[in-house]
């Protein structure tokens, strides 16, 4: 078991190294080098030289590569000239907002997905499952920005029920939890709708598949009730694909969804990525790309490890 864990960690580390290298090369694709984008119209040969020197871009590329790693280990992610703040600090500020938002969404989504998936798997072929299946199909096809826009249209503009954007009302001096919560409702609903439509489908299929397996028949032959079979045997095995997907969703807790945050002007990491792309603020863009990549690898690793816990067969490789 320890072997397997160590092996996975080593493998993931290698993936991260490859990823960082990839991003490094992507970073150097920025035309004219970062200097031009920073200086914009004011670029002259001399000023470019100066910025290059300051950014350490005059050094041969392989040296830059190691400096890059060195900075990463120190947690120095660069400096945004456009916003005049260190990238690391920026990321953290926006980070918190996204984490709150997405953690709530994912917890809610998981709970609802398990509920709907169970119904779908257990009542397979009968009307509850068909109804859920139809809804899944319909909601899965809804683009995120459309759902968000509709919700805003409905609840904010037409019904004046919930705030349309931002995170706090600008007029309030001391925003309390209620304000935060109110601003969270619509984004969370949007993300939940979209996530549940996909997630519940996976779970529903997994439950249905497990119910058809031989060991379920054996359990029935022992005289166990249907509920007990479902909760004692089937769910545990059906959760495995769900865990894998949740692992894949792990990065989103930190990075958020660009679209949803942009619609609601919610100042999270995704929103930051968007605005930085528009304004060509490369240090931020690159830092976020890196962050997401690393988190995805970590998310996969966590999913693998949890799967190992759930599935004894994976433990004894």
């Amino acid at each position, binding site marked *: 078991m320890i072997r397997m864990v160590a092996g996975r960690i080593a493998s993931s580390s*290698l*993936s991260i190294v*490859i*990823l960082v290298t*990839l991003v490094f090369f*992507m970073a150097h694709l*920025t*035309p004219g080098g970062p200097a031009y984008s920073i200086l914009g119209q004011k670029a002259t040969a001399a000023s470019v030289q100066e910025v290059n020197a300051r950014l350490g871009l005059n050094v041969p590329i392989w040296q830059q590569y190691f400096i890059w790693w060195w900075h990463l280990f120190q947690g120095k992610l660069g400096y945004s000239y456009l916003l005049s703040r260190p990238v690391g600090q920026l990321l953290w500020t926006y980070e918190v907002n996204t984490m709150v938002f997405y953690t709530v969404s994912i917890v809610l989504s998981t709970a609802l997905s398990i509920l709907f998936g169970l119904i779908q798997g*257990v*009542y*397979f*072929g*009968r*009307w509850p499952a*068909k*109804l859920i*299946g*139809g809804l899944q*199909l*319909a909601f*899965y*096809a*809804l*683009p*995120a*920005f*459309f759902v968000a*826009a*509709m919700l*805003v*249209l409905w609840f*904010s*503009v*037409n019904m004046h029920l919930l705030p349309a954007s931002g995170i706090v009302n600008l007029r309030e001096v001391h925003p309390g939890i209620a304000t935060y919560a109110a601003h969270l409702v619509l984004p969370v609903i949007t993300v939940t709708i979209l996530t549940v439509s996909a997630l519940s489908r996976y779970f529903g299929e997994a439950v249905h598949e497990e*119910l*058809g*397996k*031989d060991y*379920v*028949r054996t359990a*029935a032959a022992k005289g166990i009730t*249907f509920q007990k*079979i479902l909760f004692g045997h089937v769910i545990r095995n059906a959760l495995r694909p769900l865990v894998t997907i949740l692992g894949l969703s792990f*990065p989103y807790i930190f*990075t958020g969804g*660009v*679209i949803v945050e*942009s619609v609601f002007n919610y100042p999270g990491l995704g929103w930051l*990525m*968007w605005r*930085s*792309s*528009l304004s*060509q603020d490369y240090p931020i*863009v690159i830092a*976020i*790309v890196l962050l*997401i*990549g690393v988190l*995805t690898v970590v998310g996969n690793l966590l999913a693998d490890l949890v799967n190992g816990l759930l599935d004894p067969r994976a433990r004894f490789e």
Partner: protein
Amino acid sequence: MSTTTLSAPRGAAAPAGKFIAWLTAKDTLATGVIMGLAILFIGFAAPFLYPPDPYAIHPAAALQSPSWAYPLGTDELGRDELALLLSGGFYTLVIALPAAILAFFIGVAYGLASGLGPSWLDKTLMRLLDAILALPSLIILLFFASIFTPNNTTLILLLGFISWPALARLVRNETMAQKNRDFVLATEQLGASQIYIAHVHLLRVMAPILVVNGTFMVGDSILSLSALSFLGLGVQPPYESWGSLLEQGLDLIALNPWWLILPPGLLVFGSLLSASLTGQGLLARFGGTR
């Protein structure tokens, strides 16, 4: 395979249940295909059938809700929303569809090469793929779009290069699973080359998965392009696409311009739905993926 699939104890079927069953009993494939054809018509044929110029500005008629003169109303510049919608459809489809086709071929080729090639090639390609897949497609799109402002051609290339990894992994896994099956081994024993086997046997067995995923990829491509345009990094002015139209509507949301928001959103939704339904229907027709 067990002869008993356990299911919940039966209760009384509600009348609502019967209606739902009827609704979903309709052939999903037919529905999907018909919707798809409708979308294609809207995107490729209709723009040429509807006379008004989408980009003509009529400031006096700005922000009007639908009327006889302007069937879908006007935007803030007084442009005919219906014309914009149709034109937007054209650009959306003319970029998204070729991108999907490009991605499809790259994905299949990569996956086959990885699955059939020597072990070292497979390991290398898969590692690379894992690293690429670690980055969500929208993020990569934003990154590249920030580097160069995309024109229509570069958008096709960009979108095409984004969605192939998932297909490649699928194709590679399927190839690995199929290439050691008895009928492939028997054909090898008959003296067939790898290329023959890939072409005559493997592709035929994988056809269902390829077709189904291909339809999903078309839907994804339209979605990605619309999302990118929504964020301002896709189709650039003066051209519009459904995504950018929706974004403009959202900008003015305080004025409750439902005619600017609903139509483009519904069309993107319709495209995705038709792709899903077609994919589902095909899956059912093929009787599963084996």
